[in-house]
């Protein structure tokens, strides 16, 4: 499902910072790693310095299952700028990971019209540059 990684990837790339580097490093290794709070036990995403649930600083990077379900989605009929134009129509979804947090992502599919809220999905890595791998999701039929 992965697009071929080339030096000519022109879509927006994350400006990785010290607070987010462990997430992107793990994604490059095809692992989904997000912060979990040792104090309240909850996961969160995107990664923060303090737990957004209980505000504890006692966090640890934790690998999660990469499985979840679609909480909401939209089908872009108009692109977010010219670089996305060849992809129209494409799906942007908010998924709820089985561990709790929500993530914005793309759903990789051959037929955008079949996507529904509540669909089970699993992570599908897309290495777009040597440095950046995006954690997209696809239907989980298992």
């Amino acid at each position, binding site marked *: 499902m992965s697009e071929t990684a080339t030096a000519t990837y022109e*879509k*927006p*790339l*994350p*400006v*990785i*910072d010290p607070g*987010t580097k462990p997430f992107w490093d793990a994604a490059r290794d095809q692992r989904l790693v997000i912060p979990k709070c040792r104090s309240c036990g909850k996961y969160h*995403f*995107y990664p923060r310095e303090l737990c957004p649930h209980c505000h504890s600083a006692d966090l640890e990077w934790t690998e999660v299952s990469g499985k979840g379900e679609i*909480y*909401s*989605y*939209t*089908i*872009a*009929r*108009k*692109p*977010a*700028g010219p*670089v*996305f134009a060849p*992809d129209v129509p*494409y799906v*942007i979804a*908010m998924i709820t990971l089985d561990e709790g947090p*929500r*993530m*914005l*992502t*793309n759903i990789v599919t051959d037929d955008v019209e079949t996507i529904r*809220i*509540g669909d089970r999905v699993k992570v599908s890595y897309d290495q777009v540059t040597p440095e950046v791998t*995006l954690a997209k999701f696809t239907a989980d039929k298992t």
Partner: protein
Amino acid sequence: MAREAVIVGVGDVPLKDGRVVGGGSVLQVQARAAKAALDDAGIAMRDVDGLLVAGMWGNPGPGLLASVTLGEYLGIFPRFADTTNIGGSAFEAHVAHAAMAIEAGYCDVALIVYGSTQKSERSRTLGGRPSVLTMQFENVWGIPQPVGGYALAAMRHMHEHGTTQEQLAEIAVATRKWASLNPEATMRDPITIDDVMASTRISDPLKLLDCCLVTDGAGAVVMTTAENAKAHGSRAINVRGYGEAHTHWSIGAMPDLARLTAAEMSSKAAFEMAGVSHDSIDVVECYDSFTITVLMTLEALGFCKRGEGGQFVSNQRTAPGGDFPLNTNGGGLSYCHPGMYGIFLLVEAVRQLRGDAGDRQVAGAKTALVHGTGGTLSSGGTVILSNH
């Protein structure tokens, strides 16, 4: 006697086909709106000692210090400044902050100003938000913003509550009817629910006619003490209550996509301060960046129960002649939307409460509720105004 803050002047600039008549830079159009509002109040620019500004102009550049730049341009030396920017609801928050500053004796005359020349300059660049900090987890997916975030909310609201696209279209149709009564409105030709349903799909389930316009615009509001208003012979409008809140900017961090938490918080505070009931509100001006914004706002403000917004707006209830006058100038959907629309909600509410609204006047309007929404359903600012 305690100082009481009131609104004494409102102003805007004329538009033609969504562009400022006669053209002008973003500083020029703000100066014109400020002068119009001060003339309306009967107060001189030199008496302004509080300046409240929010915008997306001159950035990077002099817009980074917006009140400092605009104060310089207007030739005033404010002793109170507020550049709170929580998105399009910033101006509702500015009314609250100005009221607090005036009542605390921190300033005597507060000027709230907004302007944008985005249509004339073709400078709308929200899609170009750099992928730094929080946006590194949003931009990479190609979400067309802000419409994509609102589309995610609409899809979830439809899923949870059975809200239909036709119900969303009711809002666009009713708002266009109000616009047809406003000679300043950019889009005045009537539309039907079928027209909305058949309009270009943008980001499912939102279509072109579910979306606000992209226009120029400038507006201003002047506030002072009730005592000063009387001395100047101003037509004062009372600020009865206010509240503000924000919950997220990244759409992925919105606490509940089907629920406008910020508006629930800000309106609860405003109603408690005002000590009025929902039944006493004669006219509502609420931010309509998209049709879904209106539907979720009406639920959050408590005019209907959660999930019942679709039913509430059905059968053109919010149109002229309906029993719930809403967005009486034609709103961001049909009047104008220069990027941060919240100032125009205040301008229209004051005109309604003064009986100055011409063909679109809501007969006998005494109490108005103004609610701004900013960001991606991120922030809320509620103001309750009355003419008694």
